[in-house]
């Protein structure tokens, strides 16, 4: 129904859609009354369709479902089918344990919200688990959490053999883990810089600016989608410059994890 055919359209003034009125349907009422009489007030929620009862009355292997629904049990599985399922499950489990699987980042798995637009749909993902945890049920980390299976936010591609020539060129750096190295380099730089003397720091900064210019030039020529990343990078640096990051308590806990995740994802690291 179109929007106009809704409540407004049904009103007497508009004329709107034919048949979309909100007056009561007398026929329906009559049917309902009749049904009530027949069933003496009791109506099952899932009435048994009479086609099936007609058709299958002869066979007595149909069990009545507790709710009265017309549910037939599938025939038991053959040995072959069981084997198929077993293999499927084994493979699935291996994949899930493997580095390519990414766990869900959905906000609430238990009560999914209905989404209407792409934006809303995207909103439900990509949440930080720690920021969104429920402190009453799962909040407190326990010792045994260290045994929890690792959660991948992005697939860990390091250490896997890839045949680069089969991938598009723009993914090559990802496959090689260069992307991760970028982050690592950056971290190293930040750490080193803390212990540098001011003169060296100036020199390094100048060199860095030069390099960034060169990089930026490349990027403008080449791939647009790299831009957000560079921005991110710059943001981080900015933070570092501002306050050395010593008092950021959240960073103290969180960054460690992030570092691991990142390293896993890209760099050919072996910790």
């Amino acid at each position: 129904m179109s929007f106009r055919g809704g409540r407004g359209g049904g009103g007497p003034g508009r004329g709107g859609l034919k048949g979309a009125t909100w007056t009561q349907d007398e026929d329906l009422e009559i049917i309902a009354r009749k049904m009530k009489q027949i069933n003496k007030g009791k109506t099952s929620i899932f009435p048994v369709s009479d086609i099936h009862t007609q058709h299958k009355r002869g066979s007595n292997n149909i069990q009545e479902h507790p709710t009265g629904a017309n549910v037939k049990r599938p025939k038991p599985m053959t040995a072959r089918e069981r084997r198929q399922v077993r293999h499927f499950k084994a493979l699935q489990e291996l994949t899930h344990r493997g580095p390519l699987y990414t766990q869900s980042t959905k906000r609430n798995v238990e009560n999914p919200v209905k989404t209407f637009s792409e934006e809303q749909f995207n909103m439900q993902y990509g949440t930080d688990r720690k920021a969104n945890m429920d402190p009453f049920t799962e909040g407190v980390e326990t010792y045994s959490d260290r045994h929890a299976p690792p959660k991948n936010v992005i697939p860990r591609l390091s250490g896997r053999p890839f045949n680069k020539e089969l991938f598009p060129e723009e993914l090559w750096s990802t496959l090689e883990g260069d992307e991760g190295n970028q982050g690592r380099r950056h971290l190293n730089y930040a750490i080193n810089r803390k212990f540098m003397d001011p003169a060296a720091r100036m020199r390094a900064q100048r060199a860095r600016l030069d390099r960034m210019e060169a990089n930026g030039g490349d990027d403008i020529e080449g791939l647009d989608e790299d831009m957000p990343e560079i921005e991110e990078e710059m943001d981080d640096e900015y933070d570092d410059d501002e306050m050395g990051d010593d008092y950021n308590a959240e960073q103290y806990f969180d960054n460690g994890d992030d570092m691991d995740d990142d390293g896993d994802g890209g760099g050919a690291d072996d910790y």
Partner: protein
Amino acid sequence: MSRSQYAVELCALLVDETYGELTSRIFTTLLRKGRLPIATISKHTRLTPRALRHGLAVLIQQNLVYHHTVPKGLTHYEANDDAAYNLTRSGKIMEIVESRYGPRARDVVQNLFLHGHIKVSDLADAYKSPQQPAVNGKANGHPAVNGVNGHANANVVSEVQLDVILVELLELGLIEPVVERMFRSPADTRLEVENRILRDEYNGEVKGKTKELLQGKSKEKLEEMEAENREWKSKVLKRPLNGVLANGVNGSSKRRRLSHSGASINGDHAYEDDGTRLDPNLVIRINHEKCAVLLRNFQLVEAVKDRIGETTSQVYAELLKRLEKKITKCQTPKTEDDDQDRPSVMTKDIAAWLPKSVNVALGIGKTAVDAPRAGNIGEMTGSPPFNRKRKADDLEAKADRNGSDDEDRPVVNGNGTTHDEEDDPFLDDTAVKPTKRQKVTFVDNVQRPEGFHTKDDRILQVKDHLFLLEHDKYGFVTKAGMNGHGEWSVDFENIIKHLREAEIDKLVLEMFGPTGHRLVRMLRKMGKLDEKVLKDTALMKQKDVRTKLAELQLSGWVDIQEVPKDGTRGANNARVIFLWFFDNERCSTLVLDHTYKAMSRLLERLGVERLRAKSVLELTQRRDMRDKPPDEYLTQTQMNELNAFRDREEMLLGQLNRLDEIVGIFRDY
């Protein structure tokens, strides 16, 4: 190409189930929006380019996404929904491989599934060093807890064995060498080929007539490319020595032993070193098209088992097995010389390859025509034990027989007389035997123990089975020649058409009862019908017919066509004929769509069940626990909960596999 809503949903769920959320989100976006570059995907998904690139790398690795880079530099990605659907079949494929080549081969295939595509050398490395993260997932860094390892170690495969297994699988076509073309969408490939031809031969101009020529040429070229890919042997093998390859194609002793040693079903083969080495740089992957051929064979055998009987189905299975090597994929584009090209197999070969454990004397029926004949043989050959045996078998076989064969049986025997020189098992049994034996004895058929029946009997009985198959309504085999006691080919397209009809019939009967079924069958047989005619033919009251037809129409199984007698088409024009019709094609899409929906619901249900059993599942997934048997550390209540969940999971996945068979029948086969 438009896909239905449910197909998209199912593919998204399958990718999510296998490779997780990130990949699934990217894949769904690609599926819904068509081909996109990274920047646009990022806009639609709000994922960072870094995450996107990682996700895409996984998807490409598993061939779930095609990519295409134009010379200018922008790369587009496109979802490969067939590959996504094929994720459901992994269990089935592994089962087939295991039943044929043993658990080791299954393990290799499993690794191939895990990796998507992989170099032979990398696969070998994965086996050589069990600590390698590539195979064992999260095993690195936690050597104490690497249970995946334990799994792999159970079937340690040496490099030589690996090569032998791979060669075997390659030869059958279950795995295929990967070429770059596979990562490009078929449309892109075609376009490229066309452009190349255009450039090279027509100097970049197309006019009316050349366009058709161009199309023909590009098609040829594409087929050529495909065929080239199949010719893997020349490029790949380092030293094609005595082993599988030298005489592997037809009649090699090795292949023969493998394919009909009964032990192969349970035990491992002794994979001996026969000097075959694969090129370590070869990149391989699972060939789903070929796998579909095997699955189709299984489906057909099941159909035969239902319609004719157990023994006949075994004969048929053997026949299909002979053929499968020559069939690369299920749906081949139709050509004019289709009938000539169809691969065929000889009766004597089937008889020779059939495992000894199959008693072919069972399940060949004869009733009315048989009585005088049996007397005949008794007079002529004086071999009563033979006859008695056959009669006993008939009684036994009668159980698994349905009505349609009874009609066929006289035809079988009647037909036999036309080829009397080789058929007619009874009359000239003794007379022909000596000569025939010499004719049929062939190469390395040496130490076969002579069973209850002689070899000739066996051949003839096999032939009887084949006649049964030929004269079934479905036409499971068609006669292709006279050599070697008759050559047989299989017209798959026709059989699958019958199977589809049968499947639709089953569904209609289930949903609309016998009357609805009757109407549908009538409409199918007689074409478009007026309501009145329908009423008379079906011997039903008009009211009943109308209700039933309306019911059928509402759910889309039948439909009405209006044929006006004159130009005016008013609402209450009596001069309009309404014709009801039933269309198999339409119903096929309907069934497919319903099946996709059911499958995606099953997967969603599985998710819900997982959520419900979360507390127990989390325990079993703990890194320190996951490789121990759960009854060691779970309490009784938890165990019960776990078992209940596993039962449900098995049921849901089993149902998924069953529905997949329907999809196979209606789409792939």
